[in-house]
């Protein structure tokens, strides 16, 4: 969506126009869902938290700065929501694979290529989900949302050195897990 068009929609949302918010949701629901899925590792839970993220975003829309893009703000809000959800629900969480998470036949790769890519994605997802929550969220904010260390510290309300440490450890752990899988 063009930024000016998005700004106009958000201005209307700030005045309480729910139809405009519907258009915003349709534009961002997929990217927000992907954030939730990478952090939570469960499709159903990710869908629920995606809805919850949009509900919260609506209630906080008055604090949104119209001069900034909506996407990063929304996805950071969703990532934080999922992180807090994981902290609260400290259960023996087992990530659930779903056949919808695999690439279907794609002539670009051929049947063997598709199998290989799916296997690669599966290994990577499983490795991400084995990381402690705080390292996972640090990776999400840095690699998928492109936040700087400072922005990550603000989003997670943690000192910048702590955030950096979680990110570095997360990457190291991820590299080790992927190396084990590749052996």
């Amino acid at each position: 969506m063009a930024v000016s068009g998005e700004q106009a929609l958000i201005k209307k949302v700030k005045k309480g126009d729910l139809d405009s918010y519907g258009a915003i949701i349709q534009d961002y629901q997929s990217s927000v869902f992907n954030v939730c899925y990478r952090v939570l590792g469960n499709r159903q839970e990710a869908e629920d938290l995606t809805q919850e993220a949009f509900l919260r975003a609506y209630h906080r829309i008055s604090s949104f700065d119209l001069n900034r893009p909506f996407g990063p703000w929304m996805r950071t809000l969703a990532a934080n929501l999922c992180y807090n959800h994981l902290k609260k629900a400290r259960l023996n969480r087992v990530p659930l694979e779903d056949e919808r998470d695999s690439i279907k036949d794609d002539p670009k790769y051929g049947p063997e290529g598709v199998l290989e890519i799916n296997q690669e994605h599966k290994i990577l997802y499983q490795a991400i989900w084995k990381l402690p929550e705080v390292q996972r969220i640090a990776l999400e904010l840095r690699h998928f949302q492109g936040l700087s260390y400072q922005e990550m510290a603000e989003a997670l309300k943690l000192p910048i050195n702590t955030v950096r440490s979680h990110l570095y450890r997360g990457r190291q752990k991820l590299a080790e897990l992927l190396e084990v899988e590749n052996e």
Partner: protein
Amino acid sequence: MNKESSHISTDRLQTYLDQELDQTGVQEVELHLNQCPSCQAELSRLEGVFTRLERLPALKLDKDISSSVLAKLREESKFSVGITWTLALEALGAGTVIGLLIPAFRAASWLPQMVNAQTEIQAGINIFLAQLASSWLVWWAGLRLNIEQTTKSLFSTHYFPSGEFSPWILILAAAGIGLLANYILLRSNPIRSRNHKH
């Protein structure tokens, strides 16, 4: 840079890859990398993680959630109007109750007992309370007169016989309004349906 081993620490390499080093730091790291195969290998290992994360494709969300989010927001909006009315009614009820309590206590002869207290401090407090009570009694007498006159003018009859109109009737009425409002509020509470079942 780790001086003991003469290699760049993994943390510093990560900062370099994140482009969070200052210009001097970048030059130092690149100078070292040009002459250190070990650090080059560590850098490649980390870059491999970056590349694999970048390749992770976006998944499709196979349903449109906008309608359900909007439905919940509309429900909350109705709830918000409901709670405003309920709070207004409850505030009215509470105000009525507070306004009537002191005359009721006066009627129950609580204050004379307090006025008979012995110590000076208590006497001071009692005088203050007595003054407060007397002003409320004046207010209450005026209010009762107004209610009686209004009732007479509305019904042209002594619906509330003079002297039998107890403040407890209004207190009970306020409590009833409060209970009714809470019942309406809880019946239409949409938050219950928002609880996730994980």
